């Protein structure tokens, strides 16, 4: 199923549909745009027909210098059966030859009042985010002190219960059980809930509860950048858990590596508090304060000096 169709950008940018209305369901497969200036001059060898085409003042004023015969043939070649659409910027007049050619091939021709460069950057941003690679992860996403924390772990380990307590403590739920993750930028992963289960949380014994109606609009949010992964697992006596916090474990989601903490679960451990502190500690590290490293340096100094220095 195509992620973006021409119709979507018409709605998003409130474009005026001039002609070729039959083609508004054409898929847009790339976030690249094309300004077909050189094609207007007759060079079609590398014409990227599958891209959205943008005609600005430069292209259209050059177009006016062409002979009627050239005008017709260039516009004919511009409108192919895979062109998702042609956008005319600055509210310029659409050449009649373009309308004619577009109606024949049902290529939507749209018009915007925006300036070409501005329109081009906004279109690119929109298409990049829509066409970004996505995946779904089994876990819970919570915004804790502004840090997007993805809590993962086996079914029944207590992810949702931890999220519930975090929300009670004033943090915000993004998604329970199934988190849709989009790679928005090279190192930016944004998680959101599938529409059908937005705001919902499932607690064994209670069933499905709606966090928004229970705790208010401040307890939820629609999407959040993921910064930290916390993996909950049942306490394994054989396994060595991190005691110092000097090493940083990583986990790869799509193409981005995220810091990961493994937290053992055992009765009596208050997971919500641990997650809260993990988020705060993560922020502190980003601000340049690393308690574990500072302590380790102090310890090394003390050992080298031969005597502890209490000053």
């Amino acid at each position, binding site marked *: 199923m195509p992620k973006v169709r021409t119709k979507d950008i018409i709605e998003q940018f409130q474009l005026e549909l001039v002609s070729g209305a039959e083609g508004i369901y054409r898929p847009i497969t790339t976030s690249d745009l094309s300004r077909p200036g050189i094609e207007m001059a007759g060079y079609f060898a590398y014409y990227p027909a599958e891209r959205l085409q943008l005609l600005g003042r430069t292209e259209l004023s050059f177009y006016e210098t062409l002979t009627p015969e050239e005008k017709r043939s260039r516009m004919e070649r511009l409108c192919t059966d895979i062109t998702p659409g042609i956008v005319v910027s600055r509210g310029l007049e659409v050449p009649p030859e373009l309308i004619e050619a577009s109606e024949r091939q049902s290529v939507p021709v749209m018009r915007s009042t925006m300036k070409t460069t501005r329109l081009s950057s906004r279109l690119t941003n929109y298409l990049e985010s829509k066409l970004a690679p996505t995946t779904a992860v089994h876990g819970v996403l919570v915004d804790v002190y502004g840090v997007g924390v993805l809590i993962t772990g086996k079914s029944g380990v207590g992810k949702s219960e931890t999220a519930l307590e975090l929300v009670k403590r004033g943090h915000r739920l993004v998604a*329970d059980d199934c988190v849709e993750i989009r790679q928005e930028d090279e190192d930016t992963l944004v998680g959101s809930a599938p529409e*059908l*289960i937005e705001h919902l949380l499932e607690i064994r014994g209670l069933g*499905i509860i709606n966090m928004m109606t229970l705790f208010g609009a401040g307890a939820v949010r629609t999407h959040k950048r993921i910064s930290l992964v916390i993996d909950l697992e049942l306490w394994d006596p054989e396994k060595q858990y991190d005691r110092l916090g000097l090493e940083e474990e990583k986990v790869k989601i799509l193409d981005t590596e995220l810091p990961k903490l493994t937290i053992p679960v055992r009765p009596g451990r208050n997971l919500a508090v641990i997650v809260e502190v993990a988020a705060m500690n993560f922020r502190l590290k980003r601000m340049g304060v690393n308690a574990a490293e500072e302590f380790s340096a102090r310890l090394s100094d003390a050992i080298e000096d031969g005597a502890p220095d209490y000053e």
Partner: protein
Amino acid sequence: MVEKQVEVKLKTGLQARPAALFVQEANRFSADVFLEKDGKRVNAKSIMGLMSLAVGHGAVITLIADGPDEQEAVEKLAAYVQKEK
């Protein structure tokens, strides 16, 4: 790892109640079980993930299991969605 593609024959599709039963069944197995529909994969042991797919009657899904009892898990779950009641 075992994979099996099946068509959902349950008349109502995986509505809330049938979905809960499905998840209950999946949780009996120690293997990791996943369900895939239209390229979206969710953990079959989690009810919210399963319901977010909105699996209807006639939908074609893929069951994937990985673990000691994978074969049995796939068979049992496939049989469940193929019941026609």
